[in-house]
């Protein structure tokens, strides 16, 4: 299972990165979204997968027992997801604003701040 | 008053969601729903809700039957190699007046397999429905008006 996931995640990284290398801002953003999903999945997978055993303590139990999914990566992913939501929201608006201001979606046209 | 009754209804929803039946949970639910209603002011009148429970039940069975019927027809059509469909968009004049009536009607039409509400005219007099099996227009209109619309209006009004 992990092997499948490893390949999938590698694919997601590749796809995200490929999109980021496009000249269109919107595509780049989509790439970024894919990339952060991939990172979340990576954290999830790399700590081992456990089918259908959420880290929630049974009604009558005092502690998790037996097999259970590692709760810490889950908490980390949750944090990462929420953060990337905020960041992405900002990035989307930024792109919109850039387009409004420059009239182009082509990143190659946006070079005035580093060329001299 | 309508807010209060809504509050009560929502409190029951709360209690069943949480699955804890005791007075404190009821009170909590009441309090939370008070906030809910406060946050979502602007609901239409929902009085007379309780009187209509038999009608609702009656309608429920009718509607279920309709759905099963239609599902059967649809299943058949999906699974057989050829399409025997007669699709059309039909404008149906409505008796339903209030927003809630119209919405209910529209949703139930959509929920019935084979038909889909496309839109309601701006003057709220005609509802445009896409159907997959049009025999003739008038019988389709009658089917909707006498079947669904009337039953709904009975309940709501």
């Amino acid at each position, binding site marked *: 299972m992990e092997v499948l996931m490893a390949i999938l995640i590698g694919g997601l990284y590749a796809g995200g990165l490929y999109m980021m290398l496009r000249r269109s801002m919107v595509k780049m953003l989509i790439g970024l979204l894919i990339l952060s999903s991939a990172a979340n999945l*990576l954290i999830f997978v790399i*700590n081992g997968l456990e089918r259908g055993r959420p880290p929630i303590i049974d009604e009558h139990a005092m502690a998790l027992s037996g097999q259970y999914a590692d709760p810490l990566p889950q908490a*980390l992913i949750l*944090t990462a997801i929420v953060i990337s939501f905020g*960041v992405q929201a900002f990035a989307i608006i930024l792109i919109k*604003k850039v387009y409004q*201001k420059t009239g182009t979606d082509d990143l190659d046209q*946006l070079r005035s*701040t*580093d060329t001299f | 008053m309508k807010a209060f009754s809504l509050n009560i209804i929502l409190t029951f929803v709360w209690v069943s969601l949480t699955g804890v039946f005791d007075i404190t949970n009821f009170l909590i639910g009441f309090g939370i729903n008070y906030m809910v209603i406060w946050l979502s002011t602007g609901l239409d009148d929902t009085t007379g809700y309780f009187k209509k429970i038999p009608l609702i039940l009656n309608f429920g069975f009718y509607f279920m039957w309709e759905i099963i019927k239609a599902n059967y027809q649809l299943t058949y059509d999906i699974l057989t190699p050829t399409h025997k469909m007669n699709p059309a968009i039909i404008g149906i004049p409505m008796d339903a007046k209030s927003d809630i009536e119209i919405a209910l009607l529209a949703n139930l039409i959509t929920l019935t397999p084979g038909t889909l509400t496309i839109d309601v005219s701006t003057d709220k007099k005609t509802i445009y429905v896409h159907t997959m099996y049009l025999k003739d227009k008038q019988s389709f209109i009658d089917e909707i008006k006498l079947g669904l619309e009337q039953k709904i209006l009975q309940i709501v009004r």
Partner: protein
Amino acid sequence: MNFSENHNLIIVLPLLVPMLTGIICLLFWWRQKFQKGIHLVGGVLTLIASLILFYNVWENGMIVSTIGSWPVPFGIVYAADLLSATLVLLTGIVGFCVGIYALVDIDNERKKFGFFILYHFLIFGVNGAFLTGDIFNLYVWFEVMLISSFVLLALGSEKAQLEGAIKYVTINLVSSVLFLTAVGMLYGMAGSLNMADLALIVPLLEHQGLVTLIGILFIISFGIKAALFPLFFWLPASYHTPPSSVSAIFAGLLTKVGVYALLRTFSMIFIFDQDYTHEILIVLAGATMLAGIMGAFTQPDLRRLFAFLVVSHIGYLVMGIGLMTSLALTGAFFYLIHDILIKTNMFMLSGMVRRMGGSNLMSQVGGLYKARPYFALLFGVIILSLAGIPPLSGFWGKLILIKAALDEGAFGIAAVALITGFLTLYVVMKVWIDLFWKSQPVDELFKAPDEYTLLPMASKMALVTPVIILTLLSLGIGFGAEHVLALSERIASQIIDPMYYIEHVNGLSK
């Protein structure tokens, strides 16, 4: 409850104050005057909080607080060794100074749209990054810093700002993804996030090659944030676009946080393959110095030039990390202290140049030597410190670093450091000639009085005072090198022996 005894309070105070300041400003979104007042009070209190922290750490040694009372390594721990405390103090100072400067530098529109809030949240983020002892928590702090810097960078929506922001945002987000990836892997292998705990676990791991591999990911991720060659391109593309006060606080603090992260991880966790990892760092450091200074040389715009200087001098800091000897670290810390103050000051000065000369394009400005002698004096002191002219502040760090490099037989990097120093002198003197000596290419008759002259006295003071404060501090560092050196040495002695940090965090030293 004795205040000075309450370590739990002391260590979070530099976080609570800016956060609370930000929140209050947010709650009074429409009351600009009030925000301004809160902003000032917040700046002062943050400074005081950082002073208290520094004093306590200096007097009593490292302070550790287990957030949520959860024992190490199960909860998040905030730990202030002397390095962290010093950086927090510098953040307080720089934050306070730029805060005053910004009152005049930032226009009303930007103030109306949350500048003050963002400013304090940025400080909040920076302080957090310096204080946390948990690597994932560090990631979160990085994000606070990043997002507030994103917004500060774009705030104002000028075309250049937006263009710069696109690059800044994109590349920094890539860095964040890599950071997250690396943290995920580290946790997968070591099962802990507490840095002190990781320092204990990682050496026991079976496959040290894998640790090195993850270390490489960290180098790239932090390298982007620290603006190392060849990962720095986002910085010169963006740092010159926002108002000077924003550039100033960025230049002073943000890349340094990247360096700090590199330092923490590569002095505690990834220290078992130094011949490989730290050699890479040294190579990168040298390339950064040279690429940065060459870039600076080509720039016609003062702030772009300064941006490249920011890059170039990061090399010195990373050189110290790469050498990883007590002496090298001493030098790096000395340089770091100098660098934070000077880079901030530099960009504040650039704002004043724009006000006095009407532009940041050096060809458009001139004659300031005759027109504004005292400003020339300030500027001169700063650029000479920048060039590392003895006995100004930039000199000592460089001296010690080169000495440390020779001690290690690292002649190459020592040479690069020397050459970079010389080229820096070249670059800044060209700047000097352009701005101060050359005549302004505008017909004197038609020249309107410059923006600076038209400012009311109070505004002038608000611009000048922070510059003077920072300049005096720089001079103080240079002439009082003995004390700063003592500080740097003490920091280095704590860093070079990771057990100091580890034992304190684990509560073993008490």
